[in-house]
């Protein structure tokens, strides 16, 4: 054992010395316009973290208003300027701008680009055994379109009329008419332009992910041997490629309505003392188009996190993931169903009630595969040998959020019950737990888990655990009380509730929620410190710090462009042979052939040995030909 360790350490040095000379080309081609999927992944990650910070700060700002109404916020004037009124209150329109931008940023810029962009990019080539993405150039474009989109969205925050403020769902006519609110002016135009570019970025990325998974798997990496992360990224990319174009169409029609006088979404409007000429359009049409993306988007956000979690829970339970096929099947089923449940966001929008019945049925069906996933995670923990790395803690946290947030979906998916709960804080609690916090935890888990592969160093374990516990408890304190507020009927996107006798209570809970939100945001700075500190000064990583089976850990500690210095390794088994009875170690990497592990093979695996031999012969033959 000792010799192996020494050998590994030599390895570290070797690659460290080489690292700087390794990259040919200059700073620009290595770090900026780089086509290496690993660098692009880090670009997405850093940009995503930047956005998460902005989105998080925004949420704390509007939580200040909700938790401490009437508090004097004049001290924010140096930063927010005119958005703080003379009496030290947040401007009501700015409040809506905050809510809108928080939603847009978190859903699209953090949990879509920041999550899929980072981990699909980073892990797909490494885990399927490819040198890079199918098209490195398109992949680079994907990031730079996202960057451009980010710049435009960021610029819109600084407009004097404010950024888009009509909710992240930008329902027209509110978003279509600049006279309806100031945020619907230039802010909305920039929102639409930024989102159009974002969609281009997302499609360029998605097509690459799909192509790479289908075409560039290494020898032996059959679909049934793919880690669940790859399955999740694969289906996520498919959902994105199929649904984002619909948002593009919706946005385009909205641009026409706003700028070219068409009436796709507008009809019979009298505003500001003027009857508009638009007739025959339907605001409901926009909602259908929006949610045709919007609902699959929820799964675009959560599936990668579920994939990441599957990998981390199996690794750190030292057990195979329970029900691999069922896990893949449930992702597939969720993918398909995600396209036929969109109208459950629209039960009380004036849509035909018969459609409401159909969508209730389809919506509650999607709860079944989601439940299966939870049961499978729990069973994976059963009789495991659980190592609580920070990544594992966040993964267990994810399962808990996915459970507590998912279960309230059963209320909301039932149209009759949704009548009362629609657009109340119950919905806010539901989706912040099930897709917001859960996905966010998946992302954090992923960062902790693959940090050694990304930067060749370890993040600090203790700080990671402190970060987890504050965040985990904080998130529950923020979102759990919202269920009560929601059942009491409090509508969302309200600047204050004091106008109503019915909603004139729960100041205590709202204050608790806001305090917890501040605490939770503060805890993220522990993470940021840990992250940047560890990039430069963290403990040097070993080549396989978590004793994991999947392929990325067979690369050098600092993989260069191309990932493996020599030949790409061949894969002989699935990635979940943990604690296999008879085996010497509690893990058998995917690159170990069955012929080398006769002591732990299952009967049907012994039959595969012969196939392995034939395959190897085939290589030799090919090699001779050349």
């Amino acid at each position: 054992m000792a010799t192996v360790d020494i050998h590994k350490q030599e390895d570290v040095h070797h690659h460290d010395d080489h690292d700087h000379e390794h990259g040919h080309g200059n700073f620009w081609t290595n770090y900026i316009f780089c086509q290496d999927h690993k660098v692009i992944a880090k670009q997405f990650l850093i940009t995503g973290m930047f956005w998460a910070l902005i989105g998080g700060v925004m949420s704390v700002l509007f939580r200040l208003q909700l938790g401490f109404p009437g508090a004097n916020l004049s001290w924010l004037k140096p930063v927010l300027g005119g958005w703080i009124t003379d009496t030290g209150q947040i401007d009501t329109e700015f409040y809506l701008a905050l809510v809108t931008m928080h939603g847009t940023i978190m859903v699209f810029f953090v949990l879509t680009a920041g999550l899929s962009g980072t981990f699909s990019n980073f892990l797909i080539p490494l885990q399927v055994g490819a040198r890079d993405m199918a098209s490195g150039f398109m992949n680079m474009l994907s990031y730079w379109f996202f960057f451009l989109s980010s710049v435009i969205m960021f610029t819109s925050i600084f407009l004097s009329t404010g950024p888009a403020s009509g909710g992240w769902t930008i329902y027209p006519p509110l978003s279509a008419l600049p006279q309806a609110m100031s945020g619907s002016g230039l802010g909305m135009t920039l929102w639409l332009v930024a989102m159009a570019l974002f969609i281009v970025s997302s499609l360029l990325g998605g097509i690459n992910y799909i192509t790479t998974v289908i075409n560039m798997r290494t020898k032996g990496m059959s679909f049934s041997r793919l880690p669940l992360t790859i399955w999740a990224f694969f289906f996520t990319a498919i959902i994105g490629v199929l649904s984002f174009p619909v948002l593009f169409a919706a946005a385009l029609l909205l641009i026409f309505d706003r700028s070219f006088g068409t009436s796709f979404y507008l009809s019979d409007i009298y505003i500001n003392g003027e009857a508009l000429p638009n007739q025959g359009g339907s605001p409901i049409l926009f909602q259908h188009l929006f949610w045709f993306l919007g609902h699959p988007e929820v799964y675009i956000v959560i599936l990668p996190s579920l994939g990441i979690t599957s990998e981390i829970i199996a690794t750190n339970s030292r057990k195979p993931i329970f029900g691999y096929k069922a896990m893949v099947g449930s992702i597939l089923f969720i993918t398909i169903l995600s396209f036929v449940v969109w109208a459950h966001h629209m039960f009380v929008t004036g849509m035909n009630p018969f459609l409401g019945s159909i969508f209730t049925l389809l919506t509650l069906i999607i709860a079944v595969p989601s439940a299966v996933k939870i049961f499978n995670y729990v069973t994976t923990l059963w009789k495991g040998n659980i190592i609580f790395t920070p990544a594992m803690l966040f993964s267990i946290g994810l399962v808990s959020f996915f459970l507590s947030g998912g279960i309230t979906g059963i209320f909301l998916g039932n149209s009759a019950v949704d009548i009362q709960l629609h657009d109340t804080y119950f919905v806010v609690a539901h989706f912040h737990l099930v897709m917001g916090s859960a996905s966010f935890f998946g992302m954090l888990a992923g960062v902790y888990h693959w940090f050694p592969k990304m930067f060749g160093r370890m993040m600090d374990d203790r700080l990671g655990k402190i970060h987890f516990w504050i965040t985990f408890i904080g998130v529950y304190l923020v979102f759990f009380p919202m269920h009560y507020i929601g059942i009491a009927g409090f509508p969302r996107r309200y600047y204050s509730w004091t106008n109503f006798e019915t909603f004139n209570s729960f100041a205590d809970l709202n204050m608790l929620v806001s305090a917890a939100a501040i605490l939770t945001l503060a805890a993220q700075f522990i993470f940021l410190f840990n992250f940047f500190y560890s990039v430069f000064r963290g403990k040097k990583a070993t080549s396989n710090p978590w004793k994991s089976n999947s392929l990325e850990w067979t690369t050098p500690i600092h993989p260069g462009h191309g990932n493996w210095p020599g030949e790409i390794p061949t894969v002989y088994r699935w990635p979940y042979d943990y604690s296999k009875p008879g085996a010497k170690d509690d893990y058998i990497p995917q690159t170990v052939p069955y012929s080398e592990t006769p002591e732990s093979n299952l009967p049907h695996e012994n039959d595969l040995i012969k196939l392995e031999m034939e395959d190897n012969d085939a290589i030799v033959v090919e090699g001779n030909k050349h």
Partner: protein
Amino acid sequence: MSLIIGLGVILVLFILYLIFRIGNLVGLVKGTKKEEEHPGNNVHGLLFLLFCVVGLAAFVWYSYVNFDRYVLPIASEHGALTDHLFWITMVITVVAFGLISLVMFWFTFKYSYDPKRKATFFPDSHKLEIIWTIIPAIVLALLIFRGLRVWNDITAPASEQAEVIELIGQQFAWTARYPGVKDNQLGEVNYKMIDAVNEFGLDLSDKNSFDDFKSLELHLPKGKEVHLKIRAKDVLHSVFLPHFRVKMDAVPGMYTNFKFVPTKSTADMRAETGNPDFNYEMACTEICGKGHFSMRFLVVVDEPEDFEKWKASQESWLKQNPDYLVKVPAALREVAMIKSGIPVESNTGASTPTQTVSISN
């Protein structure tokens, strides 16, 4: 002052950083002697279990103690049904949530890392998977079918006898229009006829519009079916009557509908809640601009006879705005005056042809 606070914060952060550095260095020195493989690992299993038990206990306690604070009393017929379904779902989900959480966090505690043990290789079990696919499927199917029955009843067309009331949303106020006691029919509207006074866009060539009246409170009859016809003038709004479990968007360019039966008058509710100042309220639940949070509309539920009295006591819109008589086609003008309650004699002078011409010019 803020400078001092700023410096203080920086100092605290710096101290934290030092502690972190020293901790790291001490760890490095200590790390030379081989200790346990995952130090402090099993604390987290315990913490998870503790978190689960304390969390569930707090959940149950708070839900029990504050029940009356977060549950609004029900004041409609269908509200009893939807709430019933809500509580059935609540029982099922809370049981499932509690069980799964307890099991999961028990596992994290029980199966924390132990170098002497090896995890059980348990990759799949068809039996288990079938069980937990089918059980949720059956439970959900039951909930769906119950839900759909209720939903279909709620969304079925309103009966002919229902009391029709029109609600109009605009930035940032509600108005209600009643069909009037003479014909009990809402008159036609056209958004192009809306102006500062004719805020409904009443089409005065339709004789049903003559006795329509406007109200800045929503009056509802107790025990009678109410049919809300909802529209919006500018952007989306949403009618939300929390005590009646009613919610429906107001959409420009189309009518949306909601029918329900109020079961408790305002007086009943005052007695039930023990709050003499209790009032029903209506709110907007679709983001509509900066005044979204202020669209309060007072709702009053009367005993049926009081409701009829109230309706009869309201002045028609046309009577309040007699200037608009000129918009009524000449042939209908007399009908209009009778139906709207404008005294015919006193107004004959006001509606002489010459004056009509001068106004219409």
